[in-house]
């Protein structure tokens, strides 16, 4: 990987971290609110289904995870196993795509009401 790409990956991880800081806070506070109010799963789904706001929020959340996690994993693999290079880059790219796919499947399920 070129140094330019490495720098851009670092930038992407920084930006995705900022997005995640906000998303995780909103997500946790919403969960705590929902649980303390005694909402059932069906009631929560009733509020999220068809709500474009939650669809956009969790889409951003999932995409930020899909960007952030593989870049961090790439560094962890390199520093703990000394494995670096194209093979590791491909592996974490696949993990990123999988995270995005599974995450979006859940988001669509929560929005549309299908099996998540």
């Amino acid at each position, binding site marked *: *990987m070129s*140094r*330019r790409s*490495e*720098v*851009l990956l*670092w*930038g992407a991880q920084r930006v995705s971290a900022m997005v995640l800081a906000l998303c995780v806070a909103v997500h946790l506070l919403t969960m705590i609110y929902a649980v303390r109010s005694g909402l059932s799963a069906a009631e929560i789904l009733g509020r999220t289904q068809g709500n474009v706001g939650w669809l956009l929020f969790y889409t951003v959340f999932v995409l930020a995870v899909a960007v952030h996690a593989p870049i961090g994993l790439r*560094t962890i693999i*390199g*520093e*703990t196993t000394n494995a*670096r290079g194209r093979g590791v880059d491909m592996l974490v790219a696949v993990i990123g795509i999988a995270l995005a796919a599974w995450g979006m499947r859940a988001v669509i399920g929560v929005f549309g009401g299908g099996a998540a």
Partner: protein
Amino acid sequence: METLQVRIWRGTEEGGFQDFEVPRQESQTVLDVVTYVQRKCDPTLAYRFACRVGVCGSCAMTVNGVSRWTCRTHVDKVAEDNRVEIAPLRNLPVIKDLVTDMREFFDKWAKARGRFTGSATRKEAFAKVSPESKERKRIEAGIECIGCGVCYSACDVVTWNKDYLGPAALNRAWTLINDVRDTARTERLAAVAGDAGCHACHTHLNCTERCPKSLSPTAGIAGLKRAVLAATLSGEI
């Protein structure tokens, strides 16, 4: 007379600790202890020092697990139960006993383009740099490095990534990036970019915690990260 229990690393990468007893003295430094052992107990002990007053940066060792300059580290400050364990610096090959091979440390300064590159000749007037300028203040914060290798020894990222340039080399690059007289900015930013450069730093702050000159390589590296990203996005590198 009160004595200090001293354990000193003997050997190269392979080896072990040897025990010595050294008389305690007032205001005794760790370097005094090592010197006593070499002169009175075992003349084959290898260690490195020169100025003894915190200027040359050659006497750094690992004392009770912490990288320190030994000439200005008092035994009173570091002894635990009247015991001191002295080992060579981490992250560098050991030549013998307490002497490390510093080549990779200084080679990385060269890789980080740590040499000033100017355009003026001796026939031109001195450059005028205001001490109050933003750039000069940044240089001021990082310029007093004595090249002792303590930060390099304390850095876990160096341990995990042997290609990582390390805090001292990056700190040097940062001072030159801010030198308005220097003409190699673009090449230097490219040299310190990426996985083996400033972006590998995890901001653990070990270097800043241990620097005997109270510099903050971490702050300089953070500045480099931003400068390199900006240069990458603008197409400069």
